[in-house]
């Protein structure tokens, strides 16, 4: 694998996510608020995209529920702290739990259905949840709710790390979470669970013939992706310190989908690359000015038509030369089995 070679070359092997945290710390030392903001957002986008990647890229089930699940987590945590005086971490756990529960419900209901129906169900979940929250006084209706809790500080010997600091503490916290999630998923794909997911994605019929309970694995993958989405939602809510349903709406969802496709589905670093590209193009270079959205859409279309395996897939193909080109061609053909 081209990317694996890169990693080994970097000398870190399986511990490569530490490099991400290191990079985040480096950004902190630049003391440039723009960089810090962008890097923080990049971490959150990476989490969103990784969540989608887990259920779509690795399990072959396209889902539009990620931002909805994140919204649920964020709101549950915020409401518990705001109206019920819960402690910060208990609220966060509750939020994540709610997200998992919701995903289990959706999964049980819709995962046995074909791709299109599941996708619509997930979209319906997002829309219904938005509608409910917009009308719920407890959630502040359309004006939203304040996120009153904070992550606090962490003391490691002589160093105290203020996790909420806009000067870098929060940034490092976000990237630690993102790196941890990526490392976990990287581990997962090497374990039986991950390999079975990929097998289910590529040929469900064959997998069933081996006695694999497809629904159970997909529900498991969906639940895991729900936790990651919940983390993304909670970190986002902590970043803005207040939330409204519009933060998690269709526009955000589109951005997550686009940046994952550009980065590369089914690959661990795809979300990372996609998030970096997104933050760089849209927030830093502000390509296209007022037409940013349209430019992004055009990039998506071009990517889907010419490079459906995403940037990471392209790079992997280039790096390994002919073997890569062959594998890329094979992947393209396998893509026909995605979601059918």
């Amino acid at each position, binding site marked *: 694998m081209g990317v694996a070679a890169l990693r080994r070359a970097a000398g870190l092997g399986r511990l490569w996510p530490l490099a991400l945290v290191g990079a985040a710390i480096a950004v902190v030392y630049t003391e440039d608020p723009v960089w810090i903001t962008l890097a923080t957002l990049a971490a959150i986008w990476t989490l969103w995209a990784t969540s989608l990647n887990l259920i779509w890229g690795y399990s072959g089930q396209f889902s539009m529920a990620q931002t909805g699940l994140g919204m649920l987590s964020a709101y549950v945590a915020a409401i518990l702290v705001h109206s019920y005086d819960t402690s910060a971490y208990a609220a966060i756990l509750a939020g994540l739990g709610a997200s998992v529960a919701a995903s289990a419900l959706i999964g049980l209901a819709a995962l046995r259905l074909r791709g299109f129906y599941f996708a619509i169900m997930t*979209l*319906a979940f997002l829309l219904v949840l938005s*509608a409910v929250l917009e009308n719920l006084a407890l959630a502040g209706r359309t004006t939203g709710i304040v996120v009153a809790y904070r992550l606090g500080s962490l003391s490691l010997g002589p160093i105290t790390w203020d996790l909420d600091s806009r000067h870098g503490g929060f940034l490092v916290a976000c990237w630690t979470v993102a790196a941890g999630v990526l490392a976990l998923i990287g581990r997962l794909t090497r374990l039986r669970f991950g390999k079975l997911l990929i097998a289910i994605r590529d040929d469900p019929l064959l997998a069933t013939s081996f006695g694999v309970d497809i629904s159970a694995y997909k529900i498991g993958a969906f639940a895991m992706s729900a936790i990651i989405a919940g983390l993304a939602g909670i970190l986002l809510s902590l970043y803005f310190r207040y939330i409204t349903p519009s933060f998690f709406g269709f526009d955000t969802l589109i951005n997550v989908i686009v940046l994952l*496709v550009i980065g590369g589905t089914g690959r661990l670093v795809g979300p990372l690359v996609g998030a970096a590209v997104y933050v760089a193009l849209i927030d830093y270079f502000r390509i296209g000015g007022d037409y940013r959205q349209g430019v992004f859409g055009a990039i*998506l279309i071009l990517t889907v*038509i010419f490079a*459906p395996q995403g940037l990471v897939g392209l790079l992997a193909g280039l790096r390994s030369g002919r073997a890569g080109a062959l594998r890329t061609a094979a992947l393209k053909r396998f893509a026909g089995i995605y979601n059918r």
Partner: protein
Amino acid sequence: MNTNLLVAALVNGLMLAAVYALVALGLTVVFGLLDIVNFAHGQMILIGAYLVVSLVAHSLNFWAALVVAVVVVALVGALLERVVFRPVESVPINGLLVSIGLIAIGQNVIRAVWGPNQQIVPPPVSVVWHVGGATVPMSRVVIVAGSVLVLGALSLFLYRTRAGKALRATAQNRDAAELVGIPVARVNNLAFAAGAGLAALAGGFLAMQFPVEPLLADSPLVMGFIVLILGGAGSPLGAVLGAMVIGLTESLCTALLSSEAAQIVPFVILALILFVRPEGIVRIGSDRWV
């Protein structure tokens, strides 16, 4: 129970049903034939509505503007199918992704050309009937009647013309259609253009009733998808039946319960249908929805 309220709710429900039927039919034609879930359908509805607004603002008669809008959007649809959708037709999920890209582009273009503010089309029909004690706005009746006409014409086309038969044949079995010499590529193009035209028509009707703004098509599009699934994806008859269920339910809920409930009830219906009978009211045949 106030009969006037009930009558008003019924009329409103029929109008909604008509619009949803047009939207769902547009989606059905594209999904049934091309296996493409076209999320950008909403943008086409919007462009249809905005074109009507602009043409009417330039002193064109409303109905002429409607026809022009439908034709223009149909042509745009044909172009999009050729350039954007056909290269990815082998992988259905990519069609969905591409349509998402089109949404982003469409939203941007609409905002750039027409701005984010509401624009109102002076209603072409402002007569109001009085039936008993109830008031029935003629414009709603016109929308329903217009939709019925279009549905009738579509039905005639599908069942009485060669092109229509070719379309149905391709929908039933693409390979067999190709074998008997049907130009499948052209049929697909025609189907997409027809779907786009139906979207524009729905947009024009919406413009008659509601102020035109960028969010106008969001609800009709979602309802269109729910109707699509409810009716049995790929079945025009199912789309019409489903549209009536959803449209009337939504209107009656708004009248009897609240508008919040009316927002959520269609989703409840969707969940129920997916639980109980995912293939929808009108079953097409096992090789269609798998």
